[in-house]
């Protein structure tokens, strides 16, 4: 089993990097223009990376699902479910942080804004993935069926994340990031935050994979 989690060095880097990002988010930059609550624009440093990691997780689930179907290697199934779980975790966090952001910027935490509906729909899609896994007992069949579902779910997932919010006009300022609407200092902190969260994702993901490997060995004993 390859090393678990991150090496000591990388763990220190991750801790320091995230601490630096949080500090910079609070005191490194000033309020951002173009928001109803300029001071609260900083939430974007946290909300957007978390939302990006949710998508990363679900894409990872698809990737490992394809790998599993090709060679039926149980390790791929473990990584598929680990990625899906990571995706689901960050999707929940993105929903919460999105609602808090909405409450501050537009007064209402939930107004069925297209991006909010799509992120909840995303939760439903992958909640169904875990429901399916719990409904199949035999390990090989569970892995195969959930892999097929993960791949089939990719199409609606991509639609919900990338297409739906664009098709329907949205209050969401997400496009400020891409359209360069951010001031230079915000951009620096934003991409630093993105990096810190991605490293954190990697750390938790590898721990979750280790848990998967451990439980596969453990559950193989209890099957008898």
């Amino acid at each position, binding site marked *: 089993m390859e090393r678990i989690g991150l090496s000591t060095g990388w763990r220190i880097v991750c801790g320091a990097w995230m601490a630096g990002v949080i500090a910079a988010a609070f005191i490194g930059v000033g309020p951002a223009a173009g928001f109803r609550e300029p001071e609260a624009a900083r939430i974007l440093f946290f909300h957007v990376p978390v939302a990006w990691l949710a998508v990363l997780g679900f894409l990872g689930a698809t990737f490992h699902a394809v790998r599993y179907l090709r060679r*039926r290697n149980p390790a791929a199934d473990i990584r598929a479910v680990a990625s899906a779980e990571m995706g689901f975790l960050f999707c929940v966090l993105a929903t919460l942080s999105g609602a808090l952001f909405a409450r501050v910027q537009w007064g209402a935490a939930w107004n069925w804004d297209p991006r909010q509906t799509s992120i909840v729909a995303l939760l439903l899609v992958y909640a169904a993935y875990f429901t399916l896994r719990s409904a199949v007992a*035999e*390990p*090989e069949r569970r892995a195969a069926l959930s892999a097929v579902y993960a791949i089939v779910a990719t199409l609606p997932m991509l639609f919900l994340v990338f297409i739906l919010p664009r098709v329907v006009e949205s209050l969401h300022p997400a496009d400020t990031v891409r359209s360069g609407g951010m001031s230079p200092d915000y951009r620096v902190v934003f991409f630093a935050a993105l990096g810190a969260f991605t490293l954190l994702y990697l750390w938790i993901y590898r721990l979750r994979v280790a848990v998967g490997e451990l439980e596969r060995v453990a559950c*193989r*004993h209890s*099957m*008898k």
Partner: protein
Amino acid sequence: MRSPDGGPEVPAEVFLAVRDLAKSFGRLGLFRGVSFELSPGEALVVTGRNGSGKSTLVRILCGLLRPTRGSIEYRVGERLVPGRDVKRLVGLVSPDLVLYEELTLLENLRFFARVRGLRRSDMELQTLLTQVGLESEGARRAGTLSTGMRQRLRFAHALLHEPPVLLLDEPTANLDDAGVAMARACMARQRSRGILVVATNNREELELGDQILRLGG
């Protein structure tokens, strides 16, 4: 081997080689070290206590289930038959095999002929029904058959595409004497023209095999 006109050419010379086959579900080991070779004209009898994995082995030989270890190779002459095409070579008679209750016997056979890409006239299907002793039941719905007649229908269904390999799982279960005679005749005919594998615990049938494979220690 009469090739059905228009249907896929069914080869006669099919060989089966099984090497070090093993199957386990999780930690429950069913069997291991199963190796045998069969060429046309040979019959293998598989026997063993209940739960020793006879039916599972038959399911694996049909290409429906992956073994945990080991290999199964069907060869036509020298060519190795890919997994997808094993279906064309194999006929199965098994208690788990259920046909469509709402359809009549002839409709069932017509469907399986068409779906296997075979051209079979109703007259040919009627001959097949006669062969298994169901000549007057053609228009009856499969759901209304007795257990014995269902087993006969399974033979008709398995012989529909004249498979070079015939796999029988407990073939004479639920059959009356006439049924058993029919089954024995089918087995003998199959052995004369191809490969036969019979999974059974019936004392008499053990005598029939050119080779006997004992599972379950």
